[in-house]
């Protein structure tokens, strides 16, 4: 038989200041766990949704994995269109998007300046990049740019400085924002898009970085890959977009591992908060715990009651942090090398955060409870 639930609850109120401090400490630990797991989940999600299995990226073999370093001839897209079967084609438009992709310094009108990602594109870009949706304004005309939802975060600026009608400066030219786009959390959301020809002029370049090809339903990417292999003179490489981002996932694996390691470290530190409180709580209750045993409560019942006490407090801390995390952290933009993404407090993050919270309560309560229960009842009854 167990001790009444009220026993655990009221014991928490017995030393309100200590309980409150422990609650704050535990909630802080759980919050840190939410931040880190939210970061990991956001990064993973951003990379996972970025790839489209129907899209093949064609870029220079010399660029290794990094498309930013790629340079291919501007005529490549036409060559691909002419040579390949299986490329999606509707209403006479072949779905091949020539793109120039560049990390460059961008200045907003407010004077904020940061390294941004600019993609010079043509009208075919939204046909190939199917996730992209213009949510406000319109496709950029001359001297205009289309801004991704998280471009401001990548620049380290505020979202207000990248609204329609505002101007930004890059590559020695002032551009006016004509519209905003989203891409379902994909990496492009942190980019700024402009007209390819204009971008080439501004950068004094004639080449492009890559061609993105949308394959027709059922058509295999291996045709493109075969073409690139056979035409060694073109020095091209083709990769399915999902594979490209899967490789990036691998690339960020150490970062994710480090983040999980931080979760473990922070949690272990949190155990001390729980331990400290429960040792204090149990130390002042030696005779009481012996009395309960003298009445006939088994040691296991007393143990469970003490664990329940710790658990109750840590559950409250988890709930508190979970609520704050969902309201404040979820969707918060984070700047990262590959672009920007948002913290994601999803079910996994909630599960890990609350799991850590509850574990802190249990692990904090167990050692002091076991210590108290190991003592002889006869001796403990004499304790002051």
């Amino acid at each position, binding site marked *: *038989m*167990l*001790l*009444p639930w*009220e*026993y655990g609850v*009221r*014991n928490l*109120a*017995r030393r309100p200041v200590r309980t409150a401090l422990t609650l704050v400490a535990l909630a802080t630990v759980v919050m840190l766990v939410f931040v880190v797991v939210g970061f990991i989940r956001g990064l993973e999600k951003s990379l996972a949704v970025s790839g489209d299995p129907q899209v093949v990226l064609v870029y220079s073999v010399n660029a290794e994995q990094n498309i930013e370093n790629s340079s291919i001839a501007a005529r490549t897209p036409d060559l691909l269109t002419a040579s390949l079967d299986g490329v999606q084609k509707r209403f006479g438009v072949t779905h091949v998007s020539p793109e120039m992709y560049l990390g460059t310094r961008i200045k907003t009108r407010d004077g904020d300046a940061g390294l941004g990602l600019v993609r010079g594109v043509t009208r075919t870009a939204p046909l190939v990049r199917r996730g992209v949706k213009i949510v406000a304004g319109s496709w950029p005309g001359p001297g205009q740019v289309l801004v991704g939802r998280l471009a401001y975060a990548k620049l380290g600026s505020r979202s207000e400085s990248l609204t329609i009608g505002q101007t930004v400066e890059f590559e020695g030219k002032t551009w006016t924002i004509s519209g905003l786009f989203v891409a379902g959390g994909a990496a492009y959301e942190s980019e700024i898009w402009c007209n390819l020809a204009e971008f080439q002029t501004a950068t004094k370049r004639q080449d492009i970085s890559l061609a993105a090809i949308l394959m027709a339903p059922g058509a295999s990417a291996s045709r493109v890959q075969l073409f690139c292999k056979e035409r060694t003179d073109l020095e091209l490489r083709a990769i399915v977009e999902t594979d490209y981002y899967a490789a990036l996932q691998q690339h960020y694996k150490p970062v994710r591992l480090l983040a999980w390691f931080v979760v473990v470290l922070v949690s272990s530190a949190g155990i001390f908060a729980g331990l400290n409180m429960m040792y204090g709580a149990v130390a002042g209750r030696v*005779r*009481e715990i012996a*009395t*309960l*045993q*003298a*009445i*006939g*409560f*088994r*040691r*296991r019942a007393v143990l469970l009651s003490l664990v329940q006490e710790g658990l109750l407090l840590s559950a409250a801390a988890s709930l508190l942090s979970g609520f704050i995390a969902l309201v404040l952290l979820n969707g918060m933009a984070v700047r990262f090398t590959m672009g920007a993404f948002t913290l994601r407090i999803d079910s996994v993050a909630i599960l890990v955060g609350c799991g850590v919270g509850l574990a802190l309560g249990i692990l904090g309560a167990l050692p002091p409870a076991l210590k108290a229960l190991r003592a*002889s*009842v*006869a001796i403990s*009854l*004499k304790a002051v």
Partner: protein
Amino acid sequence: MTLVELNHVSKSFSKGDETITPLDDVSLQIDAGEFVSLMGPSGTGKSTLLNLVSGIDRPDSGTIHVDGTEITGLSRSKLADWRAANLGYIFQTHNLIPVLTAYENVELPTLLLPLSSAQRRDRVQLALEAVGLVDRAEHYPRQLSGGQEQRVGIARAIVAHPKVVVADEPTGSLDTETSQQIQVLLQRLNQELNITLLMVTHDADVAAIASRQLLLDHGRFLESNGAPQSDNNKASLSS
């Protein structure tokens, strides 16, 4: 009918190098319905004896039977269950749980018994009536006087209808007047509810309320005067 029976029980403690033997081959029989007081100088092993009878501690040798059950042979968790159903313990310092009300404190032992919540309520009600504290049921221990706290402690000890109730200096930390009230109460519990009581005290006046008085000295019992006892109820001086 013999309710409690100690046979050649010994218990010693080692403190560093020296060994103290508060109980040295003692035997004792207590009948159902008896009120036995146990006196003796401090440190003679009175509390130790109560702890053995209540299964909180174990003897080094000898056996203890309560109502036919050899409690010296029970495991620790079985002993806990046995205490819940068969034993009431009244502490000198009452040992109420501070976060529980008088009612909840008295209710605690009943939670360990197979009772319906209605039966449980009745039991607690009766126990509180027996100690005259029905109107203090919702008070927390800190809102009660020392005497009231001890009465709650007594109600808690009798609520499960135990076979035997042990009391370790139940009046030890009370003033004379309050102590007298508690003495009257204990006597009534014994006479009206027929509760078997084993009470330790160092106060001869308190000991006098018992139907039989024992003196523990140098690990042995001495029967002191008291109500006439039949031969087989006497503490035997084993030699």
